[in-house]
Structure formats: C-alpha cells, structure tokens
C-alpha cells in the first residue's frame, strides 16, 4: 500500500523555508516594506507637512541636488573617517582589555561585569553624559585639567574642529569598546592551549606567540565583532545629535545628523530618504567588506562549511 504524500508543509524539502518564515516575514514587514516606501519617496518632493506632496514626482532631482551638494559630501567623507577611526580604536582597545582579563584567574566574573558596564548605557544617555563631560565651562574634564594645573584656559572641546571630532569619537569608542572586548575574550577562551605550549617549548617569545598563534586564531572573532559593529554603527546618531548636533558650522556633521535635520526640521522627507539610501549603501559596503574577511579567515582556520 502506498502511503499518501504528506501535505507540502511536512515535506523535508520545505522545512527550512518554513522554519525561516517567521524571520523573513518580520524583516519584510519591519524593514523591507518601509524601505520600499521610502525608496519611492526619494523620487518625490515629499514634505512632511504637506501630505499631498507624496504624489509629486520629481524624478532624480533629490539625488541630483545631493550629488551637487558639498555639505553632503563633506558629511559623507566625515562619516567614513569617523567609522574607520572608531572601529579600529575599538578593536585595539578591546583586544588589550580582552588579553588582560584573560590572564586573570581569580575574580574574573566581577571584572567582566565591570568591563561590560558601558554596554548598559543607552546611546542617548551616552550623548548627554559626554555633552556634560566635554562642556567647556562646567565640564568635568576641563575642571579636572584646571585643578591639576594642566591647562589654564577653558578648552573648547565641542567647538574646535579636531577636538569636537575627537570628542564624538571618544564617546562612541567608550560606548562600544566593550562589545569588542567581550567577543574577543570569548575568542581567547575558545583557544586551544596546545599550540601555545608547543610554541613556547620551541623558544618563541611572548610577542611571537601572540603574533603567529593567538592573533590568527582571533581573526574570525575580530571580523565577527567588526561585522556586528558595522551593522549598528548608526546608533552613533543619538550620541552625536545630543553632543554637537553636527555643529558647530557643520564640523561634526555625519550623514545621520544631516538626514534627521533635512527630514524632520526642514520637513523635506524625499530628500532625506535619498540621503538615507546613500548611507544604507555605505553601511552595506562596510558590513560586506568585513563579512567577506570573516569568511576568508574562517576558511583559513579550516572551520568553514
């Protein structure tokens, strides 16, 4: 007797799709659908306060304006520089912290919790916190420098071009270094002891061990951390918006602050969404770059599919 063919949802072939269905539906609904809508508006003269302008087709005008706008490109380049510096600093500091904590055998759990302390801070809070730290008049930093006699004037941390950019990068690095540290620490934990012991027997010094054994092993973790971070770097918007709002004179303007001002304050949503698309392409590029690196280093580790 031939068994009846099971309905399609019970067939092995469709199982993975069924399992993935909730995930795909959620993303379609929350991310893709809104994106299609905003993609459409980027070709219109849509202004928030005039709903009927949603149907005002302007073709590529928003994109043309953006491409011809020096302020936009300045923000674009600044965003890339910001990301590059911040991600690399976070990586180096996170690696240092992870190596240090890895050496600790007693009381490590406490130290790990302290290490993750900045992760508990909401980006908006980090913004206010550093706005007050770097305030030139009543800020804790200037007060400390003056009390210690290291400076005799109020340093305009949030005004000077270099200092203001330093300040926002500092805040971003402070918030996110922990993510790197925790992921790299996980990597160190997973590391087999044998190759290190063997290398030591062979007379390698600490640096050589680190350079030729520890670091290559850690690389997949580094790229995982980089990928994760480049996925949600736009969180930095909250920080920068509170600390400087992109100012003064556009000195700390990043794509995200520019988008928010164009879209909400100036109510030019069409143009803001056009900028949004360019910023999405930028994050995709960063993520894709780290992702391919990740795949490559996994292959090197022999751990891939």
């Amino acid at each position: 007797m031939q068994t009846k063919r099971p309905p399609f949802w019970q067939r092995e072939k469709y199982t993975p799709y069924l399992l993935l269905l909730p995930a795909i539906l959620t993303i379609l609904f929350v991310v893709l659908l809104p994106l299609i809508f905003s993609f459409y508006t980027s070709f219109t003269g849509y202004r928030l306060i005039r709903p009927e302008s949603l149907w005002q087709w302007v073709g590529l005008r928003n994109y043309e304006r953006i491409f011809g706008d020096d302020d936009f490109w300045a923000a674009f380049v600044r965003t890339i520089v910001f990301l590059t510096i911040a991600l690399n600093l976070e990586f180096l500091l996170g690696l240092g912290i992870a190596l240090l904590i890895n050496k600790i055998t007693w009381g490590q759990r406490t130290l790990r919790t302290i290490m993750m302390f900045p992760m508990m801070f909401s980006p908006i809070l980090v913004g206010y916190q550093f706005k007050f730290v770097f305030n030139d008049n009543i800020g804790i930093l200037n007060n400390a420098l003056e009390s210690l006699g290291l400076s005799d004037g109020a340093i305009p941390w949030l005004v000077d071009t270099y200092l203001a950019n330093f300040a926002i990068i500092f805040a971003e690095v402070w918030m996110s270094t922990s993510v790197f540290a925790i992921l790299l620490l996980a990597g160190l934990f997973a590391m087999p002891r044998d190759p290190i012991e063997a290398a030591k027997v062979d007379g390698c010094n600490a640096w050589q061990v680190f350079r030729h054994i520890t670091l290559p092993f850690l690389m997949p973790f580094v790229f995982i951390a980089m990928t994760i971070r480049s996925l949600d770097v736009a969180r930095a918007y909250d920080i920068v918006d509170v600390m400087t709002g992109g100012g003064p004179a556009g000195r700390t303007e990043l794509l995200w602050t520019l988008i928010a001002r164009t879209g909400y304050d100036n109510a030019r949503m069409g143009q803001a969404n056009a900028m949004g698309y360019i910023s999405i392409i930028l994050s995709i590029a960063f993520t894709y770059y780290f992702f391919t690196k990740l795949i490559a280093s996994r292959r090197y580790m022999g751990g891939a599919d």
Partner: protein
Amino acid sequence: MTTRTLKTLLAATALTGIAAGAVSAEDVDYGNFDGYTLRVKLIGGAQYEPLYARISEWEEMTGATVDVLSRKNHFELDREIKQDIAAGTLDWCVGSNHTSFAPQYGTIYTDLNGLIGEATLAEFQELALQNSTVDGRLVQLPRHSDISNLFYKKSLYADEDNKAAFKAEYGYDLAPPETFDQFKDQAIFFADAPSFYGTQYVGKDEAITGRFYEMLVANGGQLFDENWEPTFNSEAGVEAVQWFKDLYDAQAVPAGVLNYLWDDTGLGFASGTVAMNLDWAGWASFFNDPANSKVAGDIGLVRAPKGSGGLRSGWSGSHSFSITEGCDNKDAAASFVTFLTNHDSQMIEATAGLLPTRAKVWDDAKAKFAADGNDFLVEVFDTYAQSMAEDAFTPPLIAPWIEVSNEIWPRLQSAILGEMTAQEALDEAADAARIVMEDAGYL
C-alpha cells in the same frame, strides 16, 4: 497609568494659594461636556507644567475628561505634530503651539475668531493676538509671551575700581549698556577667561538665528524685502555678525558658546561667572532664587540695547494653544483653552515670571509682587512691560521660517569661527534662503 494618575500627580503639585488670592473667576460659562474626552498634546517642562494642575478644575466644572496624549519639549512636539500631519493622525483636539512654529502647520488648526467669544478675546493684548494670526486666521490663543532683556550683575557696576578703570579705557562712564557697541565694550572689559566672562550668547539652531535677526532689525536691516527676496546680507547684517565674532575673538564669551542653547546661558549667568546676560523673562525668578543661583540679590535689569539703527532688539513670540480643524468637539476645546488662559491661569504663570498676554494680569501680578515685597519681580515686570509694548516684533510669520533659519545659523557659526568673512557667510546663506523661498512658492 494614564489620565487619572497624571491628573492626581498634577493636582498634587498645584500651586496653592495663588488661585485663592486672585480675583474671582470671570463670568465665563465653560459649558457642560459630560462624558466627553478631550485629547490634548501639551508642551512639557518645569516652567509650563504648574498650569496643568488646573486641568482637573476644568474637568470638574464641565464634566469632561482630559486625556494628555503627550507632554514634550517644543522641538519634540513639533516633530510629533509634523508626523501626525504626514500620517493623517490628527485625531486630537488641542495642541500647544508657538508663534514661530504656527505658520508651518498650514491649515491644520482652526480659526479661533468666532469660536472664542469676542468679549474674551478683547481682554487679550492687541499685539499678542496680532502675532498669533496667520493669513488672517487666529490659529492660536496666546498663553504667555517672551522677549529678552539684559540682566546684569549689579555689584560689578557699583565697584569704584571698575568705574575708574573703565572710564580710563573707554572714555565714558560705566553704566548698564544702552547700545550694542557699549554692550560689547563692557563685555570685553569684564571678561577674564576662563574664570569669568563678559556675556554669552546662544550659538546654534533657531536660537542664534533669532538673536541675529533681532540685531539685524535693531541695526536697521530686514530679513526679506517686500517681495520676499532675502536681504539680510546687508551692511546691517554684517555688523550684527561682526558683533558676535568680536566677542568670540576677544574671549569675552565662553569658548564653547557655539554649542550653547538657552539652558547653558541661563545656568551660566546663575553660576555667577558672567557679567551680563540678554535673556528671557522666564528666568527672572530662577536667577533670584538663592537655592539655584549665586547671583540672587545682585541682579540688575535694563531693556535690551539699541542697534546702530536706533531700535532695540525685540525678538518676541508667544506660547499658545491651538485647536485642530478636525476636532470633534470644538466647543469643548475652546472652553478648555479659554480656561487655561483665563485670569487665574495667567496669574499662576506670571508668578513664575512668565509674561501674561492679558492686559489686566500685568497689573494684578505686579500688585501681588508688591504686596509680597518682591521688588525684583516688580522691576522685572515693569521692564518687560515696556519692551513688550515698544520693542516687540516676531520673525516673519511664514511657513519656511525654520527652514530659512537652518540655512542661516551654520553660516553664522562659520563666520564667528573665522572660516569665512561675515559678508561671505551671509551671501551664501542668502543664496540658500532664496532657494528655500523659491521652493516654498514665495519667489
């Protein structure tokens, strides 16, 4: 945890004693709206909330319930209202508004002429109502007004050494400034960075655009000509920008001033490290409260200085309430906003130093201050009454004002920081403003 709790919380903080001491409630019938729920969006913040304690009184009187949908600061509220317009979710009745913001919202708010009794409107100041009118429609009922005057640290001006040194250096007697040039001289004279500053100004957003705009007018300039062509890149404009830049270069203002907003300037003056502060009336009682302020008891006040055009700077605006066009019970909404701006309500706000929009409240509030022996607030009200009557003007009441402002202020910052000259900065801003005005259909 919605309306009821909020109500109780608000009621708990009611400023007792004020309502009782004031003149008895006016002869206005606030109606009966039994069972109706009025949905409102109000501006939040310490200065604005004492008034909301009265909401429960109105509820008792009319039988209606008030559902406060949001309480946010004005910039957040502005964003929210714009989103509501975009999404078509204007399903509420009363919203807080401001004369500078109102023109952006087009026709979402209803004309209050006819909705609110003529007798009631007649009790408001003529100018306040005029400024609340956009395209001939009274889109908002003014709640309190704002204008800036110059607070200064009195003891500095009484000091004999200061007097002598100032006279020797500048050739005229040291007295609170009458013109912006004197203002600048004295700010530079008193400054001793980084421990003490001559003055400070707000350095970003609409705040600095507003300050620039009022100096432009005081210098005899205008933002636009009669055809809405930007004209602020005039000599008067350059002079105004130069004033900001000179103070910045001389370190007479804190180095971080370009990131300052109203809280920074207010707190700065209260910290006692600033000689002069051009600021809003709402700060007066804060400055004179020893718990918050180190300059309490040492504050002088003069009207805002004159520019080279002989006018005083008088950038002004009013906080207000508006009623949506789609409101399902406009009478209830009108009753509500009338109640929140009636004599007793304005007395509550006036006690905090906010400037009333009803003529009679000015006198009654002053009488009350005098009776309480609060001479400082009497002086504050005298000075501000004069400037409201003689100096006040609003920014152009046009929809693209905020957008124009966003083109102006980053360039002002560039000029102050010396990245371009004042003329270059204003020329560039005027070009950008022209595009905004073209897009908005004015040119």
